């Protein structure tokens, strides 16, 4: 027993220190280069791409995914995954829409959305922590349930014409800069502080590196897990608020792509599904890459259908480079 334990522990240590450090720094530089190449291609093909208006558009379109991704990064660092975030965004959004239809003020509507997200996230966390269902299976199951709830509440009809009282959060300006920038900045700043500057964040990383060892040193693993999934849920709820604020409607197919896009952005950013490793800055760059691709392809007249090819291709390249790097260093 002890031999496997210690070897696992040293394994985790290696993953956390020896391997992750050089790769993570390399990853952010690599992403910066990829972003640079992408910008150069799009800018050379379309003079509109680098215009202030278009950059603002990209930013506005990125806000909801970026917010979800901050939570996803933390959950993946914890060694978990959540494929149900799209469902959480959808349920929160539809509740927000219904609440607006009952003429509730923002002061009530926003907490409803956030609380719904946090509650659904906590439910995921509780199932995963308490009944030891693997995270991908548990959240796959809850995804079906959340989508069912969405269908039952929305009844197959769009909710539209919602008030624009919150639009300033995404569409407004603050100190001459788009307000979405401040939302993203606040969420990522907060997440970074929680992850890297608090004991809670250390517990998250510890669990991600070696859950068994974390349990042995007295970390309350179950509680931390539930909190992390609840945090992701809360962010998904916030993403729903921002989504409704931006588009002022709730579609039937809202949230379909969010989970896989969020996981893709997080992995692009250098997080490892095995846990313990991840970078919020990298994730944010992953989000930007995905959203710039979506925007740029349309501008240069290439069908937006190529978007997933570009994302998938870059993911493969990044994973292969990572693997070769790991092989070289070990």
């Amino acid at each position, binding site marked *: 027993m002890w031999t496997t334990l210690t070897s696992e522990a040293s394994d985790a240590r290696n993953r956390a220190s020896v391997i992750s450090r050089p790769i993570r720094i390399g990853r952010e530089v690599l992403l910066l280069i990829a972003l640079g190449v992408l910008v150069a291609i799009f800018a050379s093909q379309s003079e509109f791409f680098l215009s202030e208006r278009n950059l603002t558009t990209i930013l506005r379109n990125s806000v909801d995914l970026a917010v979800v991704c901050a939570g996803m990064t933390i959950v993946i660092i914890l060694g978990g995954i959540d494929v149900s975030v799209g469902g959480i965004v959808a349920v929160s959004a539809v509740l927000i829409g219904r609440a607006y239809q009952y003429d509730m003020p923002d002061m009530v509507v926003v907490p409803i959305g956030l609380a719904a997200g946090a509650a659904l996230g906590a439910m995921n966390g509780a199932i995963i922590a308490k009944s030891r*269902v693997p995270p991908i299976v548990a959240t796959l199951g809850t*995804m079906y349930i959340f989508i069912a709830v969405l269908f039952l509440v929305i009844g197959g009809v769009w909710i539209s014409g919602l008030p624009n009282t919150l639009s300033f959060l995404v569409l407004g300006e603050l100190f001459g800069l788009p307000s979405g920038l401040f939302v993203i900045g606040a969420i990522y700043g907060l997440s970074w502080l929680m992850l890297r500057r608090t004991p809670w964040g250390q517990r998250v990383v510890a669990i991600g590196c070696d859950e068994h060892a974390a349990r042995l040193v007295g970390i309350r693993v179950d509680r931390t897990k539930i909190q992390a999934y609840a945090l992701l849920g809360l962010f998904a709820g916030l993403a729903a608020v921002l989504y409704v604020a931006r588009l002022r409607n709730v579609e039937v197919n809202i949230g379909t792509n969010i989970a*896989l896009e969020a996981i893709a952005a997080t992995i692009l950013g250098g997080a490892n599904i095995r846990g313990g490793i991840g970078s919020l800055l990298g994730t944010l760059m992953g989000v930007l890459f995905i959203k710039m691709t979506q925007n740029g392809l349309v501008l240069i007249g290439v069908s937006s259908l190529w978007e997933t*090819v570009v994302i998938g291709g870059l993911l493969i390249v990044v*994973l292969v480079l990572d693997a070769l790097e790991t092989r070289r260093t070990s």
Partner: protein
Amino acid sequence: MNDPLTQRMVFLTGLLVLAGVAGALLSPHFLQGSTVGYLLQYVPVLGVLGMAQTLVMLSGGPGIDLSVGATMSLVGLAIAAMFGAGVPLLLACAAGLVIGGLLGAVNAVLVCVLKVPSLMGTLATFFAYSGLALALTGGAPIGGIPDWFAGLAQGRFLGIPVHMWVVFVPLAVVLHVMLSRTRIGSHIYAAGNDERAAFLSGVKVWRLRFGLYCLSGVIAGLAAIMTLSWFQAARPDAGEGMELLSVTVAVLGGAHIFGGIGRISGTVLAVLIVTTLQVALQLANISQAWQLAAIGVLLICSVMADNAVGDRLRAAARRAAS
């Protein structure tokens, strides 16, 4: 009866009966002979994908193939395009299976050679393949598949769809025999149960998994051929949603997500349950939402029940040992 897998089979059979009874209560049209053929029409495509997923999961790692649906879409398009370019259809189908195998081999290289976690590697190829399927066709289906080819998925023999007879049942039997009666099968279980022990006793763990990812691609090709015959057209989004649905079916059927536990028969039962639910609710004209909710609850509860049973068995074993 104490064997957890046997309990699983009993549990799943019970669920299937329950789904059937529910169907009969919900709709007067359910208990008719024609329902069987109608129901089985939907089984083979999801069924073979579920089996592919089960194999990949069984060998451990942990293994998962999120690209099965996208591979299926892409292979279907390739076959239809080759046929359009003048290649005989059966030859195109054979080539399609090879292409499926090659697409699977990309996963295999990522996961088994480069040691990228399977969830990440196959997520990347899922994006790439499904993107290619949409982008290369501009989102439009490729039609023009001749009527004679429709016999495979639209024809009936003894009231049961032909593709049940010639694809689904044979594949299930072959895979079942492979897993339960051959050395490869026991190697797959060994690799899934304890990778290091399997390696030390001479099982070429990663080579085995490499083969299973390729096989998963070939099986996705089979699914593509069946859909092609069914719709007489290749749709770029034919496999959409299949990645998660196939995982659902495999897990519901008792395959453990970390490998080593599972049976083809469980997967077959799980597909029948999911399809029965689907058809029953459809016939009763009840919102699809309830079907989704039922699948979600089933998925979570079945794994929770497994854990509980496992705990009890372990406790009993400990008592017996002391």
